[in-house]
C-alpha cells in the first residue's frame, strides 16, 4: 500500500522541530509499524538523508520503549498493544498517518520521535522498591501466603512496562496511572506493606516534582495502556496517599 506520513522531525533537544511529509510505497499489511519505519529509513539513508530516529528494543511488547503518538493516540488506534505490535493492516491504502513523539513537559524530546522518559526512572527510584535484607538470611518470598485476589491485582499492576502511553494520552500529561501501578504492586503485598506510607508519599512527591499534570479522571490512560492497567490502581494510590498523610 501507499501512504503519506507526517512525521515530527527535530534535530536535537533544543532545535525547534517541524512536521515533515513523506510518501512511501510498497508497504505490506503484515509489516509491523516499526518495520514500515525501517523501510522509510532505508530509503532516506539511500538518498543520503538523516533517518527518522525512534526508540525500540524488544519489538514484542515487553520493553515499553517504542512509544509513538500515531494519529492522535499513543501506540496507534488498536487497544492493548504497543507500537511494535501494531500492524500495517490496520491502515488502508492511501491513508495519511501522523506520527509524533509523546508530548509532556516531563518527557522532553531528545531527537525526532525519541523522548527522555527518565522522569519515570526517578519516580521509581524515589521508593519503587522494598528494602529486603540480602545479607545471607533472606526469606523466600514464597513462604509468605498471599490472598489470591491481592496476588492477582499486584501481578496485574506489575505488568506496567513504563511505556508512558498513559502520560501521552492524558489531556493533562498526568503520570497517575504509571505511578499508581508502581505503588499498587507493593502496597498489595505483605512485603511492601511495611514501607507503604513512606513509599506512596515519596513517589507522589517525585511525580509532582517532575512536572506531570493532575488527574482529571478522564480514563484516557486506562484505555490507551497497552497492558490494561486499571483505574482502580489510581483510586488505591489516592487511598494510600490520604491514609499516609493523616497518620
Amino acid at each position, binding site marked *: 500500500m501507499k501512504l503519506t506520513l*507526517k512525521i*515530527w522531525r527535530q534535530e536535537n533537544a533544543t532545535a525547534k522541530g517541524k*512536521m515533515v511529509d513523506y510518501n512511501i510505497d510498497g508497504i505490506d499489511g503484515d509489516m509491523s509499524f516499526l518495520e514500515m519505519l525501517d523501510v522509510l529509513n532505508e530509503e532516506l539513508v539511500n538518498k543520503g538523508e538523516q533517518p527518522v530516529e525512534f526508540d525500540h528494543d524488544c519489538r514484542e511488547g515487553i520493553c515499553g520503549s517504542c512509544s509513538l*503518538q500515531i*494519529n*492522535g*493516540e499513543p501506540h496507534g*488506534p488498536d487497544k492493548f498493544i504497543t507500537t511494535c505490535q501494531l500492524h500495517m493492516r490496520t491502515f488502508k491504502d492511501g491513508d495519511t498517518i*501522523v506520527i*509524533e513523539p509523546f*508530548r*509532556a*513537559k*516531563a518527557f522532553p524530546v531528545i531527537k525526532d520521535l525519541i523522548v527522555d522518559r527518565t522522569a519515570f526512572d526517578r519516580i521509581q527510584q524515589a521508593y519503587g522498591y522494598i528494602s529486603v535484607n540480602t545479607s545471607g538470611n533472606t526469606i523466600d518470598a514464597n513462604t509468605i501466603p498471599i490472598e489470591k485476589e491481592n496476588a492477582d491485582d499486584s501481578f496485574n499492576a506489575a505488568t506496567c512496562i513504563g511505556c508512558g502511553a498513559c502520560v501521552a*494520552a492524558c*489531556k*493533562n*500529561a*498526568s503520570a*497517575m496511572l504509571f505511578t499508581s501501578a508502581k505503588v499498587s504492586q507493593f502496597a498489595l503485598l505483605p512485603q511492601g506493606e511495611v514501607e507503604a506510607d513512606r513509599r506512596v508519599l515519596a513517589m*507522589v*512527591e517525585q*511525580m*509532582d516534582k517532575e*512536572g*506531570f*499534570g*493532575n*488527574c*482529571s*479522571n*478522564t*480514563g*484516557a490512560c486506562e*484505555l*490507551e495502556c497497552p497492558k490494561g492497567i486499571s*483505574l*482502580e490502581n*489510581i*483510586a*488505591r*494510590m*489516592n*487511598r*494510600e*496517599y*490520604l491514609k499516609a*498523610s493523616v497518620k
Partner: protein
Amino acid sequence: MGGLLKSSVAKKFAMALSGLFLVLFLAQHFTINLTSVISPDTFNSWSHFMGTNILVQGILQPILIFGVVFHFIMGFVLEIQNRNARAKSYVSYNGSANSSWMSRNMIYSGAVVLAFLGLHFYDFWVPELVHKYIESHPEDATRYYGELVAKFVSPVRTGLYVVSFVFLMLHLLHGFSSSFQSMGVNNKYSEGIRKFTVGYAIIIPLGFIFIAVFHYFNNL
C-alpha cells in the same frame, strides 16, 4: 492552603470534597425551589426559614460561599498546572477515542456555571442583601414567591438559566462520579455509584429547567 494542599493528590481530594458538598447543597436548593411550583405558601415559609435562621445564615451560608469560591479557584489552579504539563501540544490529538467530552472540558462547563452564579447572585442574592441590610425593610414572610416569579418574566433570563443548567448537567455527568475516584473509592459499589450519579446529574438540572420554564409560562 500551602502545605496541606501541596500535592496533586491532596488538591484533587479537596476538589472532590468541595464538589460533593456543592452537589449536596444543590439537592437541598432544588427541593426548596420545587415547592414553588407546588405551593407558594410552602415555598415562602421555607425561604423565610432559610433567610432568617441563624444557623443557616451564620454557619451554613459562609461554608457554602467558601465552598464555591474554593472549588472554582482550585479548578483554575489545577487547569493552569495541567496546561503547563504539556509544553508543546500535539498536531493530532484524538481525545474522543479514549475519554468523554465532559471529562475533558470540566473547566469550560465549570466556567459557564461560574458565569451563571454571577447572574444568579445579581438576580437573587444582591436584592436580598439590599432588602435586608441596606434598605432594612421589616421581614415579610410572604415576599419570596413573588420575587421569584418576577424574575422569570424575561424570556432572555429564562433562556440563560436553561442553558446554564445544561452546562451544569455536563459538569456533573463527569464530576459527581469522578469525585469518588479522587477520594479513593473504586470498588464493587462503583458501578452503582456511577449509575446513581448519572441519574442525579440529569434529573436535578432538568428539574431546575422545569421550574424556570414553568414560571415563565405561568407568567404569560
